[in-house]
């Protein structure tokens, strides 16, 4: 088990190093930052002086090492647009995105697994077939369209839920939460559904097909021959085997939820990281873009690492072969 984890952590660092190169190279290819920082009336000396101050006159590999060293300490430089520390801006925006992602991930996983199991067990039932057909909509409609439709229905026509923003938030000092106020919770519903719907249908269809596969296995037949009840067979024997491959996909999808919150946040004007990133792109705010890229890749790598470890915990065969 331990060598397996160490190997995975090593691989994770390699991935981070490579994304670091990509993030860093943005500074070089998106344009000269000096041009952005100094106005029209710069002199040649100003340019030279700033270049020396920022260390941009040094060789590229050294600049990269310095950038990484700073990044590891959480220092991603200063935003070109806002003139504030990038890390400070990100910390300020992160709670909004993480809350949204957590709620929509819970929605997607819980409902996805439940519906997946239901449609697998009642394979030929009317309701199961209806859910399967309806799920095609979830898979095929683009996120922004779902968002707009939901806003039209629940905000414009029915006027039940707010169409934008985060509502009232409570500041806990290190974290701002919208989960403690009524308007905050109301504001969360539509974006969470919009963001989670695609993942939910994906998980549901995956659970269904995996479960159908597992139910065909010999050990399920043998469990029947032992006289176990359908409930025990479906929820104890089949579900656990179904979850082995499903866990991987859920893990990857959790990363995707955070990464693709950009669209949902834009539609609902949700003050999170995605919106921050979109704005950063519009203003070519490279430090923010680079920091966002690094952060997302760290998140993906960590999630994958956790998934791999979970995988080994669920499946004893993997545990044995890796020790």
């Amino acid at each position, binding site marked *: 088990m331990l060598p397996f984890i160490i190997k995975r952590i090593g691989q994770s660092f390699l991935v981070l190093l490579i994304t670091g190169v990509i993030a860093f190279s943005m500074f070089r290819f998106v344009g000269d930052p000096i041009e952005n920082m100094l106005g029209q009336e710069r002199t040649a000396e100003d340019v030279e002086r700033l270049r020396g101050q920022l260390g941009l006159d040094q060789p590229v590999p050294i600049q990269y090492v310095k950038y990484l060293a700073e990044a590891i300490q959480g220092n991603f430089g200063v935003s070109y647009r806002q003139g504030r520390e990038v890390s400070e801006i990100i910390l300020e925006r992160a709670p909004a995105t993480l809350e949204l992602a957590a709620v929509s991930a819970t929605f997607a996983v819980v409902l996805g697994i439940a519906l997946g199991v239901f449609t697998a067990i009642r394979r030929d039932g009317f309701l199961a077939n209806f859910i399967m057909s309806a799920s095609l909509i979830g898979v095929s409609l683009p996120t922004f369209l779902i968002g707009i439709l939901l806003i039209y229905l629940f905000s414009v026509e029915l006027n039940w839920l707010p169409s934008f923003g985060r509502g009232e938030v409570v500041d806990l000092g290190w974290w701002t939460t919208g989960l403690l106020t009524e308007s905050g919770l109301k504001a969360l519903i539509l974006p969470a559904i919009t963001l989670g719907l695609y993942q939910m249908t994906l998980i549901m269809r995956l659970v269904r097909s995996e479960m159908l596969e597992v139910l065909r296995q010999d*050990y399920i*037949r*043998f469990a029947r021959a032992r*006289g*176990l*009840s359908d409930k025990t067979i479906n929820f104890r024997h089949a579900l*656990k085997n179904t979850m082995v491959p499903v866990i991987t996909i859920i893990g990857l999808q959790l990363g995707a939820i955070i990464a693709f919150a950009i669209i949902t946040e834009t539609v609902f004007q949700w003050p999170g990281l995605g919106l921050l990133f979109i704005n950063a792109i519009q203003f070519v705010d490279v430090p923010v873009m680079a920091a966002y890229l690094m952060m997302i890749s760290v998140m993906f790598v960590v999630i994958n690492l956790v998934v791999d470890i979970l995988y080994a915990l669920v499946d*004893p*065969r993997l545990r044995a072969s890796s020790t």
Partner: protein
Amino acid sequence: MTTPVLSIRNLTVEIPTRHGLFKPVQNVSYDIRPGEIRGVVGESGAGKSMTGNAIIGLLDEPAHISQGEIWLNGKRIDGLDADQKRRIRGAEIGMIFQDPLTSLNPLFTVGEQLVETIQLHLEVNAAEAKERALALLERVSIPNPPERFNQYPHQFSGGMRQRVVIALALCSEPSVIVADEPTTALDVSIQAQVLDLIKELAAERQVGVILITHDMGVIADTTDEVTVMYSGEVVESGPTDQILSAPTHPYTKSLISAVPRPQKKLHRFPQVSYGGRQTTFKIEDLARNWDKSTASRNGTLLEVQNLTKRFIERGSILPSRRKYFTAVDQVSFDIKDGEVFGLVGESGSGKSTVAKMIGTLHEVDGGKVIFDGEEVTAMQAEGIARYRKQIQMIFQDPFSSLNPRMKVAQIVAEPLVHHKLLPPDQVGARVAELLDRVGLTKGAGQKYPHEFSGGQRQRISIARALATQPRFLICDEPTSALDVSIQAQILNILKDLQEHLGLTMLFISHDLPVVRQMCDRVGVMKNGQLVEVQDTETLFASPQHAYSAQLLDLMPRLTQLSD
């Protein structure tokens, strides 16, 4: 005579299909008495398993019992509803399946699965259930039950798993056990142990056992009564000795005559002739335009010297900490022109690994393979390609060795196209000829593998292997997945290949009677080592190595069989 625990009367199972009603089981009747083992024998598709499933109430929709009665301990059970049937399953009727590797849930420990079943059927608390489970494991001769209790199925060998499956079937002290091909997936030596265990348990606990199998050897050694089935119907039923020594129905006669005899060598295998399904194949015709310049330079076509293969058991960055498992250890033998050389041994003895190294499917870790005087292990890519054209392999499982997405004609044409042996416009004609020679009908080329039976697929594999006009054929358990009747067919084709085309063969099998019929010389393998190489007749008459003697001893005698 004691009263039967289970009686089946005129049982008929129906499956409605698009092409009308299909009856896989028709009018089947038999009884099982306490402590008795009844064999049910027949080829695949004869309705043996379907009858077993009907008894235990596990028929897959839309199959259903349309007629007849099943009585268990004086109660009629065929008309019960799903819930009542479930209560009988596992409680009064236990079941043992064919493949022990897949019949246990891989994610639960053996103990969990036993305790679960015990608590389901008996009113006991967790501690008592565990005690019972340990006692059962002890009874089925699992060494060190307390430790094994907490292990997962993958930590058990195939034979051990089948013992666990038997323990599971015994959990609730059933009065009948349906064992569906319980030893087909096991080695000869393990098979003997498992069958002995079943025999002991039947006598000791007065359980009636229905033993479904296609193996006459198992029937002869284990059962008290036997029922022979053919295409859904019982053709003959009675005491085992009587049926085997004096069969009356023509199908039984022909089935018994097709069983390879361990005692003597015959020129050809008698085929099951009943039902008018004789297949004709014309290997002689193939010989006419077969390039027969196959005599090797020194009379020895293939030579293997100190062949060794190691697999990494535990990986590590430090070479000194790596643990290796030596699958093949310093194996040396040679095969003469036109000879059939057999390799026998239990699974895990390294037979297939040797074959794969000769076929260049595995890297060689030590030693040499020499083909017609040239060292294959030292060849460059170009030489290997030339070598591969001259050797071909036939694998055990005809279901997974053919690509399901390719048409049969494409499959057989692939070696021709890959090695650029024929101009594209002649490939079609050659493929048609090959398929015809192995006895497949005209339209076969345009179908997909799943449209064929196991025996037909194995003939497709043979046609594919013959496409390059090889000089050397590696057959890795070519018939162990097939019925006796089909087995005879395939073995006869292989014999013809040797006789008419002068092919040299490496024939791997764990079935000793088959080896005796097929091979000129035999090598016996154990734990990766070649313990003995002998002329077949010498080996069977007087084995030199203790292990060979032990293997021969385990071979079913079949002395009751009529000739």
